[in-house]
């Protein structure tokens, strides 16, 4: 019984950890899209943001 509880607790904890890591990865994806996409329309729309954030541009 106590083993079962502990296993359930560990898995809930690792799921929660995984969700936090996934949130961070999603954030990196968004920054990558806005700041690093080579699509011309994205570049032109985010142009001033890219320059101000010192993302490589042009």
């Amino acid at each position, binding site marked *: 019984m106590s083993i079962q509880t502990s296993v359930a607790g560990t898995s809930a*904890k690792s799921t929660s950890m995984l969700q*936090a890591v996934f949130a961070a990865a999603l*954030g990196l994806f968004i920054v990558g899209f806005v700041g690093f996409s080579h699509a*011309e329309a994205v570049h032109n729309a985010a*142009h*001033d*943001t890219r320059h*101000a954030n*010192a993302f490589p*541009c042009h």
Partner: protein
Amino acid sequence: MFRSIVFSAVVVGIVSGIAVSLMQMVGTTPLILSAETYESAGSAGHDHAQAAAAPVAVPPATEKAVPHVHAAGTAPHEHADGHGQEAHDHGGHDHGDGWAPADGLERLSYTAAANILTAIGYALVLCGLLSVAIQGGLAKTIDWRTGLFFGLAGFSSVMLAPMVGLPPELPGSPAGDLGARQIWWLSTAFATALGIALLAFRRDGFSAVAAIALIAAPHVIGAPLPPDGEHALAPLGLERQFIVAATLTSLVFWALLGSLSGLLMKRFEAAR
């Protein structure tokens, strides 16, 4: 957990994104617009030089169009070559025929939207890492101050470290291959973040040495350099002002992003 992180990050991102847009309106954006007048003048001058097809001398019109100072000994053909490269590069990228927001309100709106998206992205990373830190036992509590230090670590990783090799640039600055610069920028940001995390969370000497090596390595390898013989179209003073404005804006942005992330994540920790 995922939903509370996303909710925090969206709130933090909207607030910080709007704040950074307001700072840019008085800081970096006027400098970018001013640099673009030199840039378009430079491109026009280049076309003229090519039409003349004379590598020996720069037509006087070019000198008028691009009001920058030359060293007395600079060979005129070098100048013409430089502009040839510069204008060629731009033709393929930002000044192509593709869609771009119209100057004025439309451009400001797109910039603000891009700022808010970037801020939400960075806030997701910060809130996610704060959550990892508290769950992994690396941080005892989350509050605005924990968040502030995470934010300053972010500022160091994505602003200070990359700008050693690739300073914030105004439009019309010569630069190396875009793909190579992006890879160097991303590697530098990751290596620096990892180094700072090692310094913050590990107490042994080996980790400290590894951390310093990680932070130094990208600069030992070196950022992709701009091609020889090219120079920025905008005056050096404008470039310097831009670097200062961009760095200060980023400092305030990260301080705000970090402390707000800490504050909101604390609420969720308390509620759980």
